[in-house]
């Protein structure tokens, strides 16, 4: 291809990506050439401004109609816009956490890398969210993964950190291989890597063998990607990695990386497998609908495992690892039910989850990095030491537990609605979800008990770094706001993304 074609592309729709890319490069160079004496935190703030700029440019693109460039490898549709927004906001918060992350040892000399690796990972996630081609999808995924491997082990001197990243790499590698294997079959049957072309050619699929191969591919991709979501059966790495990784990274993994995982899964599943027939009979039900029950089963398993095992956790980060496994399970319910509200529900719940979980992690980071210990008892008497913090934490926990008045509740409500509105309604799945939610009360309110009922170990007040302060404040506000006036979010959704109708075009 020559220069004209290259220039003819409407690069402007990639502005957010370019901004992130640019900032990442900038940070790299700065980190390289800045004297060691200079505090690297400034890089963090630059990175943050970069993200905010990206958000701004993305918002300016909201009105922009669906468009795809580079031979349809990069597409900007409502789906991409909507979920990129989530990614960016999440990344912004994570960045703030990272800025005010002061563990005992092992971070100071790598601070710079810390920040631009976050940006790199974010870039990967963003590419995924708006890639229309298997290859870019895969590359984005790997960009995200590899950066996060390093991030998990960023505290070089810290054994747990190393171990966490090692486990992450190994499991990640396996998952990548499995995913890729599945993808290779898909490619083999369709002969193209462009998602929409695949869809078209798959519609004509009649050979039962090929269909079964597609089934295999589906499961391989599903299981491979369930690593990113940390859902059954590929969830077991999460607790160890979450525990060992630096708290901001944990937050990143549990929110941004999870979101990215859902993005890619929806992309592939909905485009490719939703258009795959499930038998040689013409216009039989889509393969995806056929395997609905399998996904439902995985969702149920995830919810049960996450919530039940969480009951026994003493380490707060492990606890939240399991809690986030459970939350991922709730999100799988959305996929399993495949109602008309699927995208809205997914988007709203991911958003709510973003706020409540990041807020919680901000507080966890604050509490744990003071003493280095991550035992739940660290929260004892928090209400006495810092009432505001305690109340904020209470808000996040209530939201995670899905108590009315919080965004979490509306999200759950929305999920139930979707799961029950379809035909046949998923009564069992919903019942399991609600039952496990009740089980989750045990450990969520266990933290409450620590904060409000138990006496504090030491009485000295906790001082709140600016970064964390912003995160906690904004998240708490948002959690309540979307709990009390969810229409804000839904109206925004309906106005800007007209129910993701341009997803398939």
């Amino acid at each position, binding site marked *: 291809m020559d220069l004209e074609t290259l220039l003819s592309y409407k690069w402007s729709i990639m502005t957010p990506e370019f901004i992130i890319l640019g900032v990442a490069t900038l940070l790299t160079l700065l980190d390289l050439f800045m004297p060691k004496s200079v505090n690297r935190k400034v890089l963090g703030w630059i990175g943050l401004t970069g993200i905010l700029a990206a958000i701004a440019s993305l918002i300016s693109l909201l009105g922009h109609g669906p468009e795809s460039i580079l031979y349809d490898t990069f597409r900007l549709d409502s789906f991409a816009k909507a979920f990129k927004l989530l990614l960016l906001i999440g990344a912004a918060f994570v960045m703030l956490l990272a800025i005010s992350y002061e563990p005992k040892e092992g971070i100071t000399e790598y601070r710079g890398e810390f920040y631009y690796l976050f940006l790199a990972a974010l870039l990967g996630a963003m590419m995924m969210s708006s890639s229309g081609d298997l290859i870019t999808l895969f590359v984005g995924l790997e960009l995200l993964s590899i950066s996060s491997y390093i991030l998990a082990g960023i505290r070089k001197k810290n054994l747990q950190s190393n171990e966490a990243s090692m486990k992450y790499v190994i499991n990640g590698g396996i998952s990548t291989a499995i995913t890729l294997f599945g993808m290779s079959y898909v490619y083999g049957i369709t002969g193209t890597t462009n998602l929409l072309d695949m869809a078209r050619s798959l519609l004509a699929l009649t050979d039962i063998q090929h269909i079964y191969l597609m089934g295999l591919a589906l499961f391989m991709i599903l299981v491979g990607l369930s690593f990113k979501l940390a859902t059954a059966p590929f969830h077991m790495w999460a607790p160890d990695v979450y525990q060992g990784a630096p708290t901001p990274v944990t937050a990143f993994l549990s929110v941004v990386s999870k979101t990215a995982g859902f993005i890619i899964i929806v992309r592939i599943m909905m485009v490719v497998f939703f258009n795959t027939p499930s038998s040689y009979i013409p216009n039989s039900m889509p393969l995806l609908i056929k395997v609905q029950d399998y996904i439902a089963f995985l969702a149920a398993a995830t919810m049960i495992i996450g919530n039940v095992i969480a009951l026994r956790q003493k380490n707060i980060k492990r606890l939240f690892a399991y809690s986030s496994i459970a939350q991922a399970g709730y999100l799988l319910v959305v996929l399993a039910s495949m109602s008309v509200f699927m995208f809205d529900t997914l988007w709203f719940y991911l958003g709510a989850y973003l706020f409540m979980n990041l807020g919680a992690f901000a507080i966890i980071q604050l509490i744990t990095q003071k003493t280095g210990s991550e035992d739940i008892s660290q929260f004892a008497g928090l209400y006495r030491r810092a009432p505001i913090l305690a109340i904020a934490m209470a808000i996040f926990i209530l939201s995670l537990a899905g108590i009315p008045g919080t965004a979490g509740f509306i999200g759950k409500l929305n999920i139930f609605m979707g799961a*029950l509105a379809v035909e046949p309604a998923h009564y069992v799945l919903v019942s399991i979800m609600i039952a496990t939610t009740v089980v989750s009360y045990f450990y969520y309110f266990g933290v409450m008990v620590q904060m409000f009922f138990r006496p504090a170990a030491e009485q000295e007040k906790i001082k709140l770094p600016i970064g964390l302060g912003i995160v906690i404040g904004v998240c708490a506000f948002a959690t309540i706001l979307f709990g009390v006036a969810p229409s804000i979010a839904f109206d925004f959704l309906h106005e800007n993304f007209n129910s993701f109708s341009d997803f398939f075009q």
Partner: protein
Amino acid sequence: MNFDYFLTFLVFSPLLGVLVLSFIPNTKESVIKTVGFLATLPALLLSLVAFFQYRAGVSLEELSENVRWVQFADPDTLGNLFSINYELGVDGLSLIMIVLTAILSTLAAVASMYIKKEWKGYFMLFLLLEVGMLGVFAAENLILFFIFFEITLIPTFFLIGKWGYFEKEKAAFSFLIYNGLGSAVLLIVIMVLFARTGTSNINALASILAADSQNLVFSSGTKMGLLIAMLIAFGVKLPIFPLHSWMVRVHVQAPPSVVMLHAGILLKIGAYGIIRFGMGIFPEQFQDIAVLIAVLGVVNLLYGAFLALIQKDFKMVLAYSSISHMGIVLIGLGAMNEAGIQGAIFQVVSHGLIAALLFFLVGVFYERLETSNIKNLGGLAKGMPITAGFLLAGAMASLGMPGMSGFVSEFMAFLGLFKELPILAAVGALGIILTAVYLLRAVLGITYGKAHREFAGVTDIRNKEWVPALVLLGIIVLIGVYPSVLSDPLTSTIETIIFKIGG
């Protein structure tokens, strides 16, 4: 009563108190308590205004509010479906419940004088709880109802777990889990209704299901299943045997003021729900299981009574007597006729008052004697004659002494059931005897007989403590002597229910 958002203001007025409290330092005990008390007054006043206006013949329609709240589906595609509105409204029944809530909240706020620590947090939660309770009765919409329902859960959890007695945390958790499960089941029901019909407005749902005689929207099995689930959900709250063990623990462990509200209002939400939604939305199905309900009622009545007979702790006696008395509610509902339903509603109100009175009195003497164990008490009438007198009066009201509210409700409930199932009713009537037996055993054990301890320096009920005791007893007697004060506002509600069940 002719300005918009009357109900909204009524329901959320306690939040003003929360706002004010947040500016008061935690150390100013008396100020905090005063504010906490004052914050309950607006709701009380407004509810009373509404009540007397209604009695004066003003229609309640003009009170209802309806604001679009959240729309899940894209309005362009699905229009108004799957949208939840903020809909408040009251009829005779809910108005009475609101008045009851307001009164008991105010009195409980007075009774909160016994709270020893962290008054600020206490009253904030207390007022939040009141908002929840008021909202539950004002909600015209299942999801809104559920939201308020859950809002009552959290403050109660903290109030029990932080300000309760020795096993408070255990009690708080079992409260949370049981009610959590209950509301979970309720949520399933609500969501099924909402997801399949696209609306959660009670009246809309009622009319949809009424029109659905061919079981197109739901199969008859589904309807029955939903009703049963609903019964379980509210059965936990009420509580219906065997879902009651949490409630005993709570009644024993929670501070008196909280138990006043818990026994007085929170348990009643179960009954309210069964009447409002069970009967209101699934009349036919309800009729099919009416007998079951009545049987459950009798079981509750006798089971509670028998267990109350051998309890050593007076609080336990009262807890089981609550179970027993809720049995009467079920008996009334099971009868499915005017007398029965009216009796059930009367029982809801009257037991609310009586339980509140008795638990307050327990607070009064527990405060002074640090025990509620019948063995260690005795001869209380010597040291605290007035308290003992109130206690006796409360017991009489509770065992259905004519001239007090307890009798009217009990009488009507049985009147109703005897029409439908005389044999069962006769069995249930044994409960009346047992009630007398266990209450006298307990109350006489405490007040009469030789004093096991000297009451030197023990003051009798005094100054502020008079208020709840007198007011509650007064209302109890008022209803007992002049029941029309309750029955008139209920007429229309009951007529609608009876009309629905085609009685």
